[in-house]
């Protein structure tokens, strides 16, 4: 077998465990992979430095930069497909970044099977959302800045997935956080937007601490932060179990922050303060899935530690439930979609937590979700646009006739997320549930049942959302102070929606049927091996369908067949679970009580402590030494200035005197 042979040869000198990881040096089109990042970065630079002069055509520059990056990505991807399957990891060195003796960090890019599909997702969906934003932001005075930040985001996200070492990944990781921050607070004159942006940055930074420490652990352990060295050492069983588990858990902390997973999920719903195209691109399709990318990329590390994988599984399971339970309680269309994202990423975590059996499934669901959730968000943006920025679904209703394109494209995304065959969510989610059961043992049943339950609740809240928005009687009026005149969105918005809807229909089957994606990714994340089914796949599929239909029926009975109140029922009229869900299951309350308030008290105490105790001791000491305190208080007299200066002069005299004594 050629690949095996090649590995053995290259692993010469490595211990007998083998497992060396080798990347080929870039040549041909792969040498141009830096263009992927530089194109959108240049777009951002032109728009930000060009200032108002570029207002008129800025959105075209931004869109063109994104599209050009997509074209380069496509060319590179095709070249990747054309290579031998054992030789699809192509690394290019750009320049030395932090060379300090044994710590050698370079800026370098890695195009392989995993980063390749991400490049297509990011630039493809990214370009569509740029196009959509031309229409969506047409009347916003800051449109140029908006496109600049979106380009900056594309560059950062591409850096994240293309980096060939952990420091470059970290740079991309924090820079997407910056783009996210800038775009959440895009309308920063709204206090809620500014607050949400800061919250996102803070909570992300908590995760970033984990990622940073993981990198330090790697360097201290193997003396390198390159994927090749770290993964080679991990796969070669050279790192102790304790260390590798610590590294994996720290990586996981980073992943939780970026991907809005428990316990760092509270920022993501607030991030909906940003313009809707951003919710689609950053807070649904790409950035928030970076945590899943990180875990899949670090498969050689997670493969070595059952303990860390168990934590990933638990976090995935808990978050998927949290997300869908809260998703049932909100009436704000974007918040529901945001919690839906939290929940769907929970599925992806669950998948990658299953180890080699699940990495490719997690990525498949990630890609499928990228299409349908971006489509759903763009659809919601279309609705919000049509309804004069109204986001309360209780004020919607009956929009299907007025917005047929939005209705159909949103509908396809909806069918994809609830997992109706043959839409894409069916294939990807069903596979995850099946593989969770196949994990075996009691824990396999628990994860399987949680995932199954989640599918039912997803069907419930998404049906609720869909019906409340597009069906039933209108709960808005064309007259009065709050008059609405819903209308279909312009072509620049509907065309991206249509294209994403096509993706929502087709993607899942394409990835899953025949194991296309798992075969493609196998060299990066490992072979998935033979599954030992505790429940036959057919039974799991049947169960999933029954549960989903149950969820659908529940919502249909309640929101389609019965009138929806235009005002949400009071807390006293709803169940305790709903009350808790309306309060984000008290996540914010917890953060406030556990961190924010104690932090405020501590800060206030320290301000007092610094001025009274520390400075007091200093002033007291000064008084003790030379009665300076009283003089300090009379500092304004001018007398003390003279005194201090004469003291300086005195010091110099003393120096001279002492020296004289010494010399004598």
């Amino acid at each position, binding site marked *: 077998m050629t690949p095996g042979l090649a590995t053995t040869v290259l692993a010469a*000198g*490595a211990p007998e465990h083998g497992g060396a990881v080798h*990347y080929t*040096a870039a040549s041909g089109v792969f040498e141009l992979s830096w263009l992927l990042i530089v194109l959108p970065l240049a777009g951002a630079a032109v728009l930000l430095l060009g200032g108002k002069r570029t207002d008129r055509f800025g959105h075209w520059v931004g869109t063109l930069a994104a599209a050009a990056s997509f074209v380069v990505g496509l060319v590179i991807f095709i070249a990747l497909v054309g290579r031998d399957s054992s030789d699809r990891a192509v690394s290019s*060195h750009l320049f030395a*970044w*932090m*060379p*300090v*003796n*044994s*710590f*050698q960090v*370079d800026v*370098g890019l890695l195009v392989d099977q995993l980063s390749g599909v991400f490049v297509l997702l990011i630039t493809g969906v990214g370009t569509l959302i740029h196009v959509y934003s031309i229409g969506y932001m047409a009347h916003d005075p800051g449109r140029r800045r908006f496109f600049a930040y979106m380009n900056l985001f594309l560059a950062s996200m591409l850096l994240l997935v293309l980096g060939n070492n952990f420091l470059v990944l970290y*740079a991309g990781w*924090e820079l997407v956080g*910056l783009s996210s921050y800038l775009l959440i607070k895009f309308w*920063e*004159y709204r*206090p809620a*937007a*500014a607050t949400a942006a*800061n919250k996102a940055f*803070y909570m992300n930074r908590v995760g*970033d*601490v984990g990622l*940073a*420490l993981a*990198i*330090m*652990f790697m*360097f*201290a*352990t*193997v*003396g*390198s932060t390159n994927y*090749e*060295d770290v993964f080679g*050492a991990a796969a070669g069983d050279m790192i102790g179990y304790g*260390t590798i588990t610590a590294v994996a858990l720290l990586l996981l902390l980073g992943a939780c922050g970026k991907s809005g997973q428990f316990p760092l999920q509270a920022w993501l719903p607030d991030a909906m303060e940003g313009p809707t195209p951003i919710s689609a691109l950053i807070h649904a399709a790409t950035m928030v899935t970076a945590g899943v990318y990180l875990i899949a990329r670090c498969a050689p590390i997670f493969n070595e530690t059952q303990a860390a994988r168990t934590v990933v599984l638990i976090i995935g399971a808990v978050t998927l439930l949290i997300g869908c339970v809260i998703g049932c309680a909100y009436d704000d269309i974007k918040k529901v979609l945001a919690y839906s994202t939290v929940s769907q990423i929970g599925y992806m975590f669950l998948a990658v937590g299953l180890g080699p059996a699940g990495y490719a499934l997690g990525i498949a669901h990630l890609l499928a979700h990228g299409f349908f959730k971006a489509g759903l968000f763009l659809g919601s943006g279309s609705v919000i646009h049509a309804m004069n920025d109204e986001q309360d679904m209780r004020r919607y209703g009956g929009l299907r006739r007025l917005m047929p394109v939005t209705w159909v494209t949103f509908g396809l995304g909806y069918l994809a997320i609830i997992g109706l065959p043959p839409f894409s969510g069916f294939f990807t989610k069903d596979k995850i549930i099946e593989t969770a059961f196949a994990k075996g043992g009691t824990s396999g049943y628990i994860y399987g049942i949680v995932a199954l339950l989640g599918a039912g609740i997803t069907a419930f809240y998404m049906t609720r959302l869909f019906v409340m928005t597009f069906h039933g009687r209108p709960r808005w009026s064309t007259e009065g102070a709050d008059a609405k005149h819903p209308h279909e969105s312009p072509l620049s918005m509907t065309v991206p929606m249509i294209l994403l809807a096509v993706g929502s229909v087709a993607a899942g089957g394409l990835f899953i049927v025949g194991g296309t994606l798992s075969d493609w990714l196998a060299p990066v994340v490992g072979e998935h091996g033979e599954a030992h089914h505790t429940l036959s796949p057919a039974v799991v599929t049947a169960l999933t369908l029954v549960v989903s239909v149950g969820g659908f029926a529940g919502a249909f009975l309640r929101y389609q067949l019965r009138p929806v109140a235009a005002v949400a029922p009071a807390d006293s009229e709803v169940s305790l679970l709903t009350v808790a869900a309306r309060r984000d299951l008290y996540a914010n309350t917890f953060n406030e009580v556990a961190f924010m308030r104690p932090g405020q008290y501590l*800060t206030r105490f*320290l*301000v007092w402590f*610094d001025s009274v105790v520390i400075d007091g001791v200093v002033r007291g000491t000064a008084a003790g030494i030379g009665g*300076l305190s009283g003089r300090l208080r009379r*500092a304004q007299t*001018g007398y*003390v*200035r003279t005194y*201090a200066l004469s*003291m*300086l002069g005195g*010091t*110099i005299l*003393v120096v001279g005197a*002492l*020296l004289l004594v*010494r010399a004598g």
Partner: protein
Amino acid sequence: MNSVPWLTILLIVPAAGAVLVALLPKTAGELAKRLTLAITAATFVLALLATIAYEPGEPGFQFAQSYTWIEQFGVSYAVGVDGISLVLILLATLLVPVVVLASWHESEQGRRSAGAFFALLLALETGMIGVFAATDVFLFYVFFEAMLIPMYFLIGSYGSPKEQAQRSYAAVKFLLYSLFGGLLMLAAVIGLYVVSADELGKGTFDFAALRQMEIDPGLQKWLFLGFFIAFAIKAPLFPFHTWLPDAGAQSPTGGAVLLVGVLDKVGTFGLIRYCIPLFPDASDYFTPLVLALAVVGIFYGALLAIGQRDMKRLVSYTSLAHFGFIALGCFAFTSQAGTGAVLYMVNHGLSTGLLFLVVGFLVARRGSRDVEAYGGMAKVTPLLAGVFLIAALSSLALPGLNSFVSEFLVLVGTFTEYRALAIVATTGIVLAAIYVLHLYKRTMTGPLVHEENKLVSDLSLREKVVVAPVVALIIGLGIYPKPLIDIIRPSITATYQDVGHSDPAPTVQIAGANTGGNS
């Protein structure tokens, strides 16, 4: 070009400029400004040329010159630079012309003339270059104390115009604090001289000779403390910091930039140049203490910054946190942490310098340092807000900007030696995000609540020229810091090797590990 006496030239140009500007008539304010700008710009160009002439690979001091000054006491005029002092001279000479241009109008609002302001600035520049260039401990001490005088007058005469009493208080507090530290250092300097007379037969202040001595460990501790406390006050480190918020708040903008950007670096520079090489045993002995103070400072400074309403005090406290990182890097004794610490000194000068400049622009427009006087400013001053944000992001060490490189080097270098401390210090990056983005949020975002803020103008052309080079360096050194690292690294490596510290090896040896790039 190594025969060119770069350092003496670098000292003479601003010194002669100071005399020249001081001699101008009081009415020639405009001429004084232009002349100072030209002189300081020329000094920076000279420093750049010196950097080009510098050979990073060569060990020891370069451009060295030594002339006997006071023969009886072994005092010499001796100058020379290694990579550590060279980058700090570069930083100082860069920031001075920036400050000159930034102080164009502020210099006219003091108790003394604009000409005097610029003469003081030039005198200060001479002191700053001298303190980094001196290789005679006594000469170092002279520059160390001499810097105080112009700084004192800059705070006292040109500081916050409306608060005369607080201004004087701040200036005197700064002076007394520094003098106290200087006195302790003086005692230690004399102590060193005494030891050298015993050990070498002839008393000397020559740094190279002094570092060859084997000083009794017990005595080392006392001498170390004399230097250390002076530097800990200067830097400042917790708990010697309480003069800094007062001085930072009351200084004129340009003064604050130089005070925190460069003058304070003399403290951290002193740790690495004097404390460690001269007193290696004492440095080892006190390492736990210094590291503890450093980590406490990171959190203490950050939390106090969060609690401030006065913008300039806030920025001063953020510096306390940053100095914690720098001290941590100096005393972790790995080449990564040490290189990171010196790079951090440069980067902190740029990022905090920019932060002080932008805050100064705001204060100049509205006459208030109180955060509450602002809010929603991004709407009226978008460009100023953008520069503010860049400074803020640099302060929180965002990758892609300068500070990230230095902060990560400090942390990763500390991690390999002191794992637990590095873990604790790393969590400080969350607080850094909070103090600086919270400040941005309070001043720049939200609705424009104050009527008078609606008429505030955005950055002027002069102000754009002031911030442009700093912003460019903040981004440039974030992406490509290698030129500076290549200058600093050999000197740091040599410094630590001389005192018997080498980098710990990774716990796992990977065969044929790729150190950078592709295999």
